[in-house]
């Protein structure tokens, strides 16, 4: 992992946060722009869930990750704390792999 890219991500992240406080002093976003920005993370997270659950290289593969994410989904729905959700997913995948 290269330090350069890590620092680039740090720079980009700070620049985005600072646009308002440092550059735009006082100007605000219209409701339409804000609504669009509010939605940006949604398809991205959905895509990440899909790729991380089923993706293996360029293919979709069914393995222990799918039941693990199903368990996580039930826990998210039941409003379980974040740590419980991710540990249950890891535990489910680990258990299934140990059994198979």
């Amino acid at each position, binding site marked *: 992992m290269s330090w350069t890219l890590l620092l680039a991500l740090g720079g980009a992240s700070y620049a985005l946060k600072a646009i308002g406080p440092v550059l735009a002093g006082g100007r605000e976003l219209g409701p339409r722009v804000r609504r669009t*920005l509010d939605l940006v993370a949604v398809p991205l997270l959905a895509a990440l869930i899909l790729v991380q659950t089923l993706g293996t290289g360029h293919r979709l593969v069914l393995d222990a990750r799918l039941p693990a994410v199903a368990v996580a989904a039930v826990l*998210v729905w039941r409003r379980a704390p974040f740590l419980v959700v991710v540990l249950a997913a890891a535990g489910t995948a680990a258990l299934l792999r140990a059994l198979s």
Partner: protein
Amino acid sequence: MRTTAEVTSSRTLSSAAGIGIAVGVYGVSFGVLAVAAGLSPAQACVMSMLVFTGASQFAFIGVLAGGGGALAALGPAVVLAVRNAAYGLSLVPILPGRLRDRAIVAQLVIDESTAMARAQDEPRAARRAFLATGVSVWLCWNAGTLAGALLGGGLGDPRSLGLDAMFPAAFLALLAPQLRRPGAPVAAVAGAMITIVVLPFAPAGVPVVAALAAVVPGVLVARGMTAMSERASQVQVDSPEEVG
């Protein structure tokens, strides 16, 4: 007796501390996964200090862990950080006046600090809530990352521990509360469909960024829903006149 302002301020501080602790736990899982994805503990810690926005950091190491290069990991991580620009703009009225101070506190612009600031009624309380939550989350997130990164090195094979399943579970927990927004379910489903189509031939990281196009149908649906609810409220306002 304590004044209302004092009660509000101590309540703000205790919520800020509570949010910090919850984020610290999240930081531990980030530290463990970052090391499992190939970052050194030092890199994991520097990332949490400088990038300091959870979803982007998880996306970055998620693409790395899935076999993508660091350059491929950069796209999704930066796009996920775009919402912080919207937060920063919305916080301008309550931030300190001096440019140097604003430049320093800009690093604290994240989901939690913005939400806490927005929950306050008046600007001074909002600034205090923003700063208290931002500092608390920054400290706990970095302490958690350090602990997780040191712990993670000694854990062994990430796959047999099911660590790869932690990524989609973490993203699911991040996505769920956002699905209540108008148009969000459509954007989520359309994003997933775009990814399925693009995945077979695009390089790692690209399918996730391509899913961004799904914002368009999401916004269209949200606009339609707003128009419909406005019409519905007009009908409600109008109806007593019709009866009368």
